[in-house]
């Protein structure tokens, strides 16, 4: 499918230093050793999809990257700044990293528009009229300008997730993290969210996506990372990974997921 896409898709900038560099990251929760030493580089304009069985630490890795739960050991660099170094202002780091959650987490007391503006006004200090204008533009980008005055409870799951994407985009993040953005959605609603994400990829956003949507991974990802048991087992080009994975475990997992996806779509 990748051949059918327009020719001017922004390509990852592999010559510059990575936008996100992760080295030897470990994380435990109590006695559970979730991440056992992760190394990963993500380059500017790259779309990286993390796959793997549940409970292997994909979401934990995302939360380490934006320091919502900082790693126990190892280092993470964002644009060549070591964000895991002591004394780093973590709030400032998070302003540069957008995050989209599985269960949306829209602010329930605010309208769709206010969900997008609040970060701009309270965190970035943008004046209200300007923030509203920019927020409307972000909502338009996800196709929801006509829902600006709706509260989250008045939106469908897919619409909520698109507002959540607009909220993250409004902060002009340098990298976007997606934590299973379609897992809480009915199958017929996942399409609209994936489409928005695909557009972002085409616009050249750097994205790290945890997802079980293999078709999306195949069509949009520049790199697939297969994680299991707290390690990165294998990473590579999507076509290569799907047709010709190096490890048996990766092949087995991808085949299983692909079969499941097909039966789901046939229904």
């Amino acid at each position, binding site marked *: 499918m990748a051949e059918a896409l327009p020719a001017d898709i922004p390509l990852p900038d592999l010559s510059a230093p990575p936008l996100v560099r992760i080295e030897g990251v470990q994380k435990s929760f109590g006695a559970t050793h979730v991440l056992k030493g992760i190394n990963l580089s993500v380059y500017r304009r790259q779309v990286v999809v993390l796959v793997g069985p549940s409970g292997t630490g994909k979401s934990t890795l995302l939360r380490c990257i934006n320091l919502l739960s900082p790693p126990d050991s190892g280092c993470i660099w964002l644009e060549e700044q070591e964000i895991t170094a002591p004394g780093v202002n973590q*709030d400032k780091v*998070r302003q540069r990293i957008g*995050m989209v959650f599985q269960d949306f987490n829209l602010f329930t007391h605010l309208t769709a528009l206010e969900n997008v503006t*609040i970060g701009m006004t309270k965190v970035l200090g943008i004046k209200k009229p300007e923030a509203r204008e920019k927020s409307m533009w972000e909502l338009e980008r996800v196709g929801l300008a006509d829902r600006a005055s709706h509260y989250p409870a008045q939106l469908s799951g897919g619409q909520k997730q698109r507002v959540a994407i607009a909220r993250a985009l409004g902060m002009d993040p340098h990298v976007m993290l997606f934590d299973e953005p379609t897992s809480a959605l009915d199958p017929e609603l996942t399409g609209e969210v994936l489409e928005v994400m695909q557009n972002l990829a085409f616009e050249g956003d750097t994205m790290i996506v945890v997802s079980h949507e293999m078709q999306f991974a195949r069509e949009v990802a520049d790199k697939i990372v297969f994680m299991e048991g707290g390690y990165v087992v294998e990473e590579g080009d999507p076509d290569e990974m799907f047709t010709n994975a190096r490890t048996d475990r990766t092949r087995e997992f991808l085949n299983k997921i692909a079969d499941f996806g097909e039966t789901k779509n046939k229904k």
Partner: protein
Amino acid sequence: MPFLEKFYTTILFLLEGLGVTVSVTVIALAVGFVLGVLMAVLRVYGSRPLAALAAAYSVIVRAVPVVVTIFILYFVIASIINLTPFLAGALALGFASGAYQSEIFRGALQSVAPGQMTAARAIGMSRVQAIRHIILPQAVRLALPGWGNEATLVLKDSTLVFAVGVPEMLRRAQYVSSRTLEPFLAFGTAALLYLVLTMLTTFVLSRVEQRYRLLT
């Protein structure tokens, strides 16, 4: 004097205390609100010593009869710093209400979904910003039904400042009773006025509740 005329003069006399009753109630609720929100935030989000301090405030103040709190403030504290009986009474009621309100707001804070804090932090808000702009506005809305109940309780507790001689409605009803020797008329009228005030408060607050209801 016919009954209606007596009732009329009684009600007029009591109504002169209405301003005191209402202002004691409003001051107490406002002081209690500030204390309650502050203590609730400390208990849920504060460091361990601060949370313990807030919990101790709530336990101790709720264990002491409100009249005792009023007496302590008026006879002990007011002898050190200059406080009128009115202010001592209103502040003591606020101090007491703060303990109850802290319980109301603590429950509300704890029922805000944890994802709200995560999402707020993810867009770069500090913990304090997240509490102020995201968590508290939701918690206050969730607390409204319980808070409305507390408002009516404080309204009725405002009669207790009568114990330090503040001329609120009940105090004035007692004047009437001892002067006319008709306690039923005096206290019945007072009861009626409190009923009307409580109903009014409940009505206004239920409107506010509807207006700011969190859609889920």
